[in-house]
């Protein structure tokens, strides 16, 4: 579901059904933690609103971050680890997307030779979508398995001050995001 919804972020339609606050609700709902998923989604949405998807700009992926964070919350990971794990996975996803885009340049060159323009565009688009969804799925699934294991084995033994720090950062994230949105709104256009 996460991988399918994420396609909306850049590749299909951009209806914003993939936006973090929606992704958090849907994936969180499927993982059994809709309210927590929604809160994490809102936090990630507000943190990511300052980066605009303009031109070829790739910052960390908010939709992947929210989906993974909601899945981690559903797997009963601590809220700080869920948020941080989601953001790290979102950053990794952007790195992989940059690699995918470079690979597509090669496919584009083949298209420009005119060899595939008669029949190949539709299937090529479907293949591109499937490959991207597969990358997202594998990355998100690996991240959830690894980060939830880290939470159980390592994080529970980490110094208390670190755990509190991560928890406070997660709690304060929406406030920081709201402040950022306020400042952006007040700046001159």
């Amino acid at each position, binding site marked *: 579901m996460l991988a399918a919804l994420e396609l909306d972020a850049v590749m299909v339609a951009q209806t914003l059904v993939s936006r973090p606050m929606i992704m958090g609700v849907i994936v969180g709902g499927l993982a059994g933690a809709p309210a927590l998923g929604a809160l994490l989604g809102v936090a990630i949405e507000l943190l990511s609103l300052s980066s605009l998807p303009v031109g070829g700009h790739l910052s960390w992926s908010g939709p992947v971050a929210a989906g993974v964070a909601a899945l981690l919350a559903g797997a009963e990971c601590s809220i700080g680890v869920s948020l941080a794990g989601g953001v790290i996975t979102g950053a990794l996803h952007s790195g992989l997307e940059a690699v995918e885009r*470079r690979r597509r340049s090669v496919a584009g060159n083949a298209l420009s030779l005119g060899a595939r*323009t008669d029949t190949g565009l539709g299937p090529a688009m479907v293949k591109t979508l499937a490959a991207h969804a597969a990358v997202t799925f594998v990355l998100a699934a690996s991240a959830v398995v690894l980060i939830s294991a880290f939470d159980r084995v390592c994080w529970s033994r980490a110094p208390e001050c670190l755990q*509190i720090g991560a928890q406070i950062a997660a709690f304060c994230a929406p406030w920081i995001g709201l402040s950022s949105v306020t400042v952006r709104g007040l700046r001159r*256009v």
Partner: protein
Amino acid sequence: MSQEMTPLMKARVAFRLLFLQTGWEPARMQATGFLFALDPWLGACWGFESEELRRARLRHLEYFNTHPIAAWLLAGIVCRGEAAAAAVQGVQRQLAIEKISRYKTDYGASLAGIYDSLFWGALRPASAVVGILCAFLVVRLGIRFPFFVVGGAAALAAYNVPAFAARWIGFQRGLERGENALVDIASLGVQTWIVFLRRATAAGAVLAGLLWASILEPRLLLAAVVSGAAGLALSWRGVEPLMQAGFVGAAAAAVSATGLWK
């Protein structure tokens, strides 16, 4: 316009425009997606001249980039231009084809600037704040319905109703009025909408913060106020919100290590 686009053809091109960015790549950006969207119409216009059809496809594989919603307006203008080019011969055809390339390169970039500011820079944050405020309203009014469903639906509607209207109207206007549709855009006063939306979003964000604060216990309220105030100062200085969250986490860990916060 020399060849009328049937409603079915409009629907086909419009549906395919949803996949504009599927083939996004650094060298040509949205060119593959744009060609994919236009392909049925190119077939209808140039189908009787197979070499011209091949050339038309190759032309549209050249660099193209704009905002995904602005692409609908440009697609309308380009479709009209392709039909006009196919209806003439010789030098006139060459001039018509050059005009199409110019629409894409010249207007693509300038429209992207306006649409990016309106849809990504103003409407996207505004719709997020609308969603958050609606969710709080459900909680505060004690309505027995999941707040996150209401908030999510409100955010989606607040973005998509204007966005889909802009897509469809842009496509139609482009088809009907060609280049003149750009004059219509210029007369809309979009800059005023952007300023209004951004100010309203800032006010909505403050209201959402106050509503949220009203349901917190005192200790968490303190953390919220401190992080919100620090966020205002740091955001004003251009520090990324994600980095600010990292600072807050590190500061909280340090304070906790001293035993002041348990």
